[in-house]
């Protein structure tokens, strides 16, 4: 095709419909709108719907006035905090060691930590339950918490490891040259630089634990320590309770959004500090 012909061609094409690359995003917007945004809007509407079908705030009010619901939320938060703290306390040192080329030169160990993520989490929960039974761990709180730690450990480890292994090692050398010992280097250089990893690790452990209920149902036999997820699950068994259940789900959604915003703030602040200095 000569240049002139190409120009000619372009001119005639202008009138017809021409396919553009970004049109490929249209099905995406359609699908996401229909199956992700609209369901969330329906959830929002139902949260303000009473048992009689009218508009009401009572679904949200009942969250604050029903003792067993509040207790379940308390349980979930407590287990969420404990799980996150334990995961972090275990995963950070492991990540630090795995990312240090002096201790670990191969990928095999990292891979060993990642592999269990690919096994159905309920099967893994069943496995840790059998360990509890053998070891005679009877305390319900610890059974639930350890089971969650067992399930979520790789999700805390991986982001921290990724950040640490990609960290510019010349910072450490610089700190050493300037007279910082190992502890000081860690506190002043490594820790601040690993904050993004810690933040995304916490995000991947905390809210998923708070909203989880299957793990609790497997490791605990009796009706003790109900979690917030159990309450929502119970609400969606009878049609007249859908409004209440939606309101409780909205509360979880708000909590997710709050944690995301807080995490974003922490990361942005950290970034400004790193760049500012």
């Amino acid at each position, binding site marked *: *095709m000569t240049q002139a012909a190409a120009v000619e061609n372009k001119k005639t094409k202008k009138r017809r419909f021409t*396919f*553009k*690359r970004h049109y*490929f*995003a249209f*099905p*995406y917007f359609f699908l*996401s709108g229909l199956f*992700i945004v609209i*369901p*969330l809007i*329906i*959830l929002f509407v*139902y949260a303000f719907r009473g048992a009689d079908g009218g508009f009401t705030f009572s679904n949200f009010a009942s969250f604050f006035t029903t003792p067993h619901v509040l207790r379940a939320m308390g349980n979930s938060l407590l287990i969420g905090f404990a799980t996150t703290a334990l995961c972090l306390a275990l995963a950070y040192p*492991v990540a630090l*060691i*795995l990312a*240090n080329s002096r201790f*670990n030169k191969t*990928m095999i*160990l990292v*891979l060993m930590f*990642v*592999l269990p993520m*690919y*096994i*159905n*989490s*309920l*099967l*893994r929960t*069943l496995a840790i339950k*059998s*360990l509890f*039974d*053998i070891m005679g761990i009877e305390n319900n709180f610890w059974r639930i918490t350890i089971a969650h730690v*067992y399930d979520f*450990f790789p999700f805390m480890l991986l982001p921290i490891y*990724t950040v640490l*292994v990609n960290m510019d090692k010349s910072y450490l050398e610089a700190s050493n040259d300037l007279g910082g010992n190992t502890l000081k280097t860690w506190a002043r250089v490594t820790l601040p630089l690993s904050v993004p990893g810690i933040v*995304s690790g916490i*995000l*991947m452990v905390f809210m998923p634990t708070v*909203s*989880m*209920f*299957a793990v609790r*149902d*497997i490791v605990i036999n009796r009706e003790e320590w109900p979690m917030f997820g159990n309450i*929502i*699950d119970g609400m969606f068994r009878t049609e007249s309770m*859908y409004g209440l259940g*939606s309101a409780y*789900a909205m509360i979880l*959604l708000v*909590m*997710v959004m709050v944690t*995301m915003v807080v995490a974003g703030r922490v*990361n942005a602040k950290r970034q400004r500090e790193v760049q500012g200095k």
Partner: protein
Amino acid sequence: MKLKQKKPRKKLTLNQRRKIQKSFALSFVFIVLAVMYVPILLIIVFSFTNTRSGRIGDWGGFSMQLYSNMLQNRELMGALGNTLMIAVLSALFATLLGTISAVGIHFLKRRVKAAAKTLNQIIVVNADIVTAVAFMLFFFVIGFRQFGYTTLILAHTMITMPFVILTVSPRLNQLNPSLYDAGLDLGAGPMRTLFKVILPQLIPAMIAAFAIAFTLSVDDFVVTKFNNGGASGLHTLSTYLYTSFKRPNVGQQLRALSSVIFILSFVVLLIINFRAKRKAKKARLPVVAPPTPTTTA
């Protein structure tokens, strides 16, 4: 062992100190690793016993009974079949739709692109149970009551598609932007260029995305539980396990099934990783790592 031989008199040399540090560090890692693998090993060991073993820890003698019982349990095998079918189909749909979407999003204008990426994060960061009940209410409101394959495949496609997009997008960013123009210059239309030039280069990313979508679908419990039509509805492995693990015979058969799944996935993943390791050696990152949600949208 070397530590025992020499009793330090005055000061340890730097080399010795480093060796001690290394052994401490590695033993910590190995202890954590051991705790992770002990439950799995327990299940595997106690899958080779007989039905007299009421719970793990009671050894009833070596037998393959649990494996043959597992194969005869129709409900369990049905749930396994459902799990695989739903996972394969939804991962396939998610990979195709997700890849096309990722291409489209890649070429959007900056603002719209940012909006699309935020939209994509909704499923990734949202609590599973919220997504699950939202789907359930959606089907309820539009009057679609046949909870089963349709609802599950649809829901699983939608919850795995964002991860496909997150996997394919980075690869698109790495592509040489002039390739597309080269395709046009050489006389291929936009569509043909996309299918002949862009898509072939995305195939490795698409395979990885399929694997991630498949695992997420198999692993899903909450979305399945709310959209399978209840206890009498369609069961996948997760929901079957959840409803019947307390029945002693099912509990025993699940040991056998877990062992098969554990060993199978380990072998597959090890093969994949060691094959891909040579290529990824520089990156020092596990090849089979699911994408983590980014905190800054």
